[in-house]
């Protein structure tokens, strides 16, 4: 670049800077900018709301799964034999004999 051109560029840039500096924004814009600035400065004193840590969603999922597991475990299926009735059976041999007779009645009669 020639010296004359560079000097011309520098003068041009200085002239542009001067024009830009002299131009201004409207009162409305100035007011709104001041309000935005005040909000930004005030935010320095506001409590910092940290985003949830990475482990929080994982922990929430694990807690949910544990709660589901426990709720299923607590709701046990109804017993095949009435527990009350089972508790009143005094002679377990009698119960076994009844089961044996039932088995004979179903399969082994034909086989014999």
């Amino acid at each position, binding site marked *: 670049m020639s010296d004359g051109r560079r000097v011309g560029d520098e003068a041009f840039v200085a002239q542009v800077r001067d024009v830009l500096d*002299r131009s201004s924004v*409207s009162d409305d814009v100035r007011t709104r900018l001041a309000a935005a600035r005040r909000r930004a400065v005030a935010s320095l004193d506001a409590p910092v709301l940290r985003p949830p840590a990475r482990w929080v969603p994982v922990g929430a999922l694990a807690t949910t799964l544990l709660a589901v597991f426990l709720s299923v475990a607590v709701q046990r299926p109804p017993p095949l034999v009435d527990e009350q009735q089972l508790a009143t059976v005094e002679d377990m041999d009698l119960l076994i004999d009844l089961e044996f007779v039932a088995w004979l009645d179903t399969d082994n009669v034909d086989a014999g």
Partner: protein
Amino acid sequence: MSNASALNRFLTDVEQRAFRMARFAVADTDEALDIVQDAMLTLASKYANKPEAEWPPLFFRILRNRITDFHRRRTIQKGIFALFGTRPAGADDANPLEQLSDERHAEPDFRAQLNVTTQRLEAAVAALPARQREAFLLRVWEGFDVAATARAMRCSEGSVKTHFSRAVHALRERLEDDWP
């Protein structure tokens, strides 16, 4: 508290230039104000504890990112509306210079404050490619050196020199009638 007063002082110094830069880039006063406010809040919330000397390039980098986000959203919006064969409200494929001129007709306060020379300069600056405009305004208006401009624009110093030089030549060509 000294941090707050220092931040207030810094933002007071840059806010109008930042607004004008944003407005050059998005050609909309409300959008430009939103962008500047967002940049201010981001600087305050994330970088206020940085040394004050680092605030200027940081602030203008944030501002630039917000402007880029704006254009990205606008591009996506246009794409979606084009997909459905409609146009978003305010969408216009007209020449940006004409668009800028039209907007100023709608803003008498803005227009009244600018003389013809300033209007022509602003229109010419607004018509520069984005990277050239950023380099030019940061160097000329903010007074950043090449290194600080490169940090704000996240590019090499060589790129800053190239963008700045092209911007100066483009502006001189466009304004040769007004700037002997």
